[in-house]
């Protein structure tokens, strides 16, 4: 009996230790990143986020071009991905026959399982040349009077990054939106149909308002993923630190500059500046993910969502 009690004590101790290690890991991440960023924070202060100079030789670091690239690429990708994803999720849950819907849902999950480096491989060797030869010259010819379509077609560009990010976040938003839509009570839909609503009116009046906050959560989660996406974007965005209005111009994002420069950074200040970019990225994604989880939990009340962020 005594042996059993002490076994229980040890076993519980181990589980407590491991469970709380999750909190420890999160804390450790924040502390380590902050500690490593201190030299850069001390040297540049706020100039770091409003400066555009990034000169490893002179030891002058300002991250604005990367912040710009991350913000623009993620937001544009989200603007394109949201209607596609919500449309697909509605099609899967409400419109398609059960079997077809299930098939599309598993294909979308397949899309989510492809590693980001393979998206990048396809992006840089297939999509970017296609953009350079076909899409970008076309946009420039027809719509070149708009500033966002001005400039030479490079292929690797902000546009390429937006497209690849869109492809990558669609499966996330779709699968979570699908889970959210499945929580809408059948009676709610039947009531709308009984009142004579068409299928679309039923969706618009009974389903979408009910799932509103959950869908918002799904979109925000997609945003978190887009902001942190590294490999695929690094491979197609052109890696040029500049702030250009044109979508055809190459750009640079926060994760990309870390991916490209971190291993080779020689000066302490350079490493620290990259760490500070990482710290900003971490803070942004923690806020975004926290917000998304809260929104989703309010819908599913802590039940498993199925889709993983």
């Amino acid at each position, binding site marked *: 009996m005594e042996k059993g009690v002490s076994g229980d004590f040890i076993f519980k101790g181990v589980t407590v230790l491991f469970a709380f290690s*999750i909190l420890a890991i*999160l804390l450790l*991440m924040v502390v380590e*990143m902050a500690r490593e960023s201190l030299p850069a924070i001390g040297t540049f202060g706020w100039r770091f986020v409003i400066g555009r100079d990034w000169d490893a030789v002179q030891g002058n670091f300002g991250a604005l071009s990367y912040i710009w690239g991350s913000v623009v690429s993620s937001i544009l990708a989200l603007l394109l991905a949201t209607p596609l994803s919500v449309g697909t999720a509605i099609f899967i849950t409400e419109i398609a026959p059960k079997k077809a819907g299930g098939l599309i849902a598993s294909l979308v999950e397949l899309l989510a*399982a492809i*590693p980001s480096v*393979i998206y990048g491989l396809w992006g840089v060797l297939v999509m970017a040349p296609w953009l350079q030869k076909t899409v970008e010259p076309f946009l420039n010819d027809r719509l070149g009077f708009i500033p966002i379509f001005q400039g030479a077609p490079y292929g690797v560009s902000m546009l390429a990054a937006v497209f690849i990010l869109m492809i990558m976040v669609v499966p996330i938003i779709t699968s979570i939106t699908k889970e959210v839509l499945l929580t809408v009570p059948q009676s709610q839909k039947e009531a709308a149909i009984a009142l004579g609503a068409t299928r679309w009116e039923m969706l618009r009046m009974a389903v979408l308002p009910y799932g509103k906050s959950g869908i918002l959560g799904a979109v925000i989660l997609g945003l978190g993923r887009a902001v942190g996406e590294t490999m695929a974007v690094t491979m197609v965005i052109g890696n040029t630190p500049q702030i250009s209005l044109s979508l055809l111009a190459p750009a640079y994002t926060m994760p990309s500059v870390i991916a490209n420069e971190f291993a080779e950074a020689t000066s302490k200040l350079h490493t620290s500046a990259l760490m500070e970019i990482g710290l900003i990225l971490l803070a942004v994604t923690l806020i975004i993910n*926290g917000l998304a989880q809260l929104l989703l939990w309010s819908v599913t009340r802590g039940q498993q969502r199925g889709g993983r962020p």
Partner: protein
Amino acid sequence: MTHLAWRKAKNAGMILLMASAALAVLVPLALIFVHIVRMGGSAVNLDFFTRIPSPPGEAGGGMANGMAGSAILIGLASFLGIPVGIFGAVYLSEYGGNRISAIIRFSADVLAGVPSIITGMVAYALLVVPMKGFSALAGALALALIMIPIVLRTTEEQLKLVPTSLREASLALGVPLWRTTLKVTLRSALTGVLTGILLAIARIAGETAPLLFTALGNQFWGWKLTQPIAAMPLQIFNFAISPYEDWHRLAWAGALVLVTVMFGLSLAARFFGRSRRY
């Protein structure tokens, strides 16, 4: 047009729009697969599995060292990450109070959303800096940090599905709680837990960003855990952005092998997942 006809037309139009959204989503999937299978299929051969990459501009060669390196990294990451995930989940489902469990669950979900490149930076600060060099160990730590929240959340879901009566039956026979948890609760949820582990492995098998400045990559064979080690995703990345046609072929072949392995794991996971019954 009558009002009813207008409503019906609008309904049809919207349904068409949503169907085309679903179709549009699947187009890139089809394109990516066609390219991987076509380009990769023509480049995979025996050499690919047995030889290390050729120097730039030279035909032939393979990714044998990358495959071995990835296997080592995944094995080590699993060794570090899976116990933490499983026993952490045991705490959440068997011991934890509601409040603290909710906080840990929430933290795990947030942790799962942290960009993988950040876990690489943390592993760099924790291991590469003190050890004064890139190492397989640091790469494995970065991957383990990604695995832990995934294994934790899937295991917890599986443990919750085990009926309380099973636990009570065991406890009533005088089996202490910890043995009950190991022999009854975890045992009954075993297939589900395995599913979660396979999914987590499939996830980290393709991770590249966290390895960039931890495992670093290696053009040759490397077996020491304290030295840089090759990994398949890193090789695919480096070859894809290189200007050499032959290296592009290797990258496609690597993509085909990687995707095949990952889908194999997902299928296995699904197979395990389906056969669970209590």
